[in-house]
């Protein structure tokens, strides 16, 4: 038991634990909608797209979340433009924009601002130095995840299940879709300090994708996603502290392993 409690005696680990708990609530709830609405690739791409924004934020003196949100908005607008004439498939356009974001980010980091070791932190997150602002943002996004799932859950469910009938069922389908994408962008930005731009999926996608393999109901999917995000987040945090790793990769490896086991269990069932 001490092995589990001891690492959290350090203040930086207590802050990291609080961040992971709050992000697990947001990740598990929003993750359910990401899994159902097939937005996993979009979420991953938005995370990556924030990288150039984060690189610019420090030297330009802009708050990191603001720069990240700006980059995410630019990314979404660029994607919409690429898709407008219908000649490019959405996965190809997403892939293209993803590569562009990484390339611009690394050129800015390497040659313009010479960010050096900073890049690792931006891409894979850190346990150290989570600010009060990071925690407040994680808390706000967790509260939004609970509130939105309660108020918009039926809209998101009906629209995703049967888009053609959504309007006749009296749900605000278009507004719901816009709010879902906006919430996902916010959740991505909140997860950045902890797991980094490349690995936001570890908290926002993987736990709910795993829960989806096992859950037979919406309630099971939502609760299972939160429980798995919590377990994987805390487990990854302990592993990161023990092995001196950035937390993003540690949580990602654990999440991947649990997903593999769940897929195997489902096959054997």
């Amino acid at each position, binding site marked *: 038991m001490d092995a589990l409690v001891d690492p959290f005696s350090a203040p930086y680990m207590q802050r990291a634990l609080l961040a992971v708990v709050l992000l697990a609530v947001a990740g598990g709830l929003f993750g359910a909608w990401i899994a*159902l609405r097939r937005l996993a690739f979009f979420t991953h791409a938005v995370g990556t797209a924030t990288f150039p924004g984060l690189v610019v934020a420090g030297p330009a003196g802009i708050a990191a979340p603001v720069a990240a949100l700006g980059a995410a908005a630019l990314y979404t607008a660029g994607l919409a433009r690429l898709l407008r004439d219908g000649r490019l498939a959405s996965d190809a356009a997403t892939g293209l924009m993803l590569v562009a974001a990484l390339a611009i980010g690394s050129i800015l980091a390497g040659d313009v601002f010479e960010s050096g070791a900073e890049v690792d932190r931006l891409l894979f997150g850190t346990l150290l130095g989570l600010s009060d602002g990071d925690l407040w943002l994680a808390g706000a996004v967790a509260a939004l995840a609970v509130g939105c799932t*309660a*108020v*918009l*859950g*039926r*809209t998101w*469910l*009906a629209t*995703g*299940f*049967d888009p*053609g*009938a959504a*309007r*006749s*069922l*009296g*749900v605000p389908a278009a507004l719901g879709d816009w709010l879902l994408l906006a919430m996902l962008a916010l959740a991505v930005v909140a997860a950045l300090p902890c797991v980094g731009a490349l690995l936001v999926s570890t908290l926002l996608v993987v736990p709910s994708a795993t829960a*989806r393999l096992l*859950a*037979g*109901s*919406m309630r*099971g*999917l939502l609760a299972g996603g939160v429980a798995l995000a919590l377990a994987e987040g805390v487990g990854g945090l302990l592993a990161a502290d023990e092995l001196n790793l950035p937390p993003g990769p540690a949580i990602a490896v654990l999440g991947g392993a649990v997903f593999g086991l769940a897929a195997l269990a489902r096959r054997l069932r």
Partner: protein
Amino acid sequence: MSLVEARDLATGYDGLRAALRGVTFTVQEGQAIAVLGPNGGGKTTLLRVLLGELAVLAGTCTVAGRAAYVAQSGRARLDFPVSALDVVLMGAYARTSPWRRLGRAERARATAMLDRVGLAGRAGERFGTLSGGQRQRVLIARALLQDAPLLLLDEPFTGVDRASEAELLAILDELRAEGRGLLVSTHDIEHARRWDRVLCLNGVQIAFGPPGEALTPQILHATYGEELVTLGEETVAVHAHHHD
């Protein structure tokens, strides 16, 4: 009472060009109208303008009360973790505040609707594991829970076996008998013969009237063009290309 009154209606997707025009018809209480036409002929477009999703570009279109839309069951996401009862309960969303739980009364009504379509014992089953005909009946139960006087059914017999088809037809007859209006888009001319009126569309309205008047070989030729196959003197059949 007229549930739908359309006069020289034109509608389209981009708000400028009409995908469908010259449509004049009515749906009275207790009437079932078959909407016939080739793919791209405007059947779904008509249903969508009646739902208020598309703009009326010319003419008039009045719908009394809210219409319920019954999509092809294959269009719904079969991988969602929702039971038959969950799907029917969506019919109560419009009258329940989003932050309030769907109460016991709504659940009881939803169960009663499932019972009406002969699926009382399947309430807890995953929607995606039901057969095509059973899924279609669940979607009809959802429309019934919406309490809509008008049901718009988009090719309800697609992907449904013969036995389920007979059950579906019996349910539709019951709904008609209790005064609801039905607008049923279909590829099947034999089904169309059962209904009170037939509306033939191919970008424009070709005909509207009782089956005896609207299902003549000339009108069917004008409606379907090349897609029509004539077998012998009387029988006509249509190549049904289902869009996906």
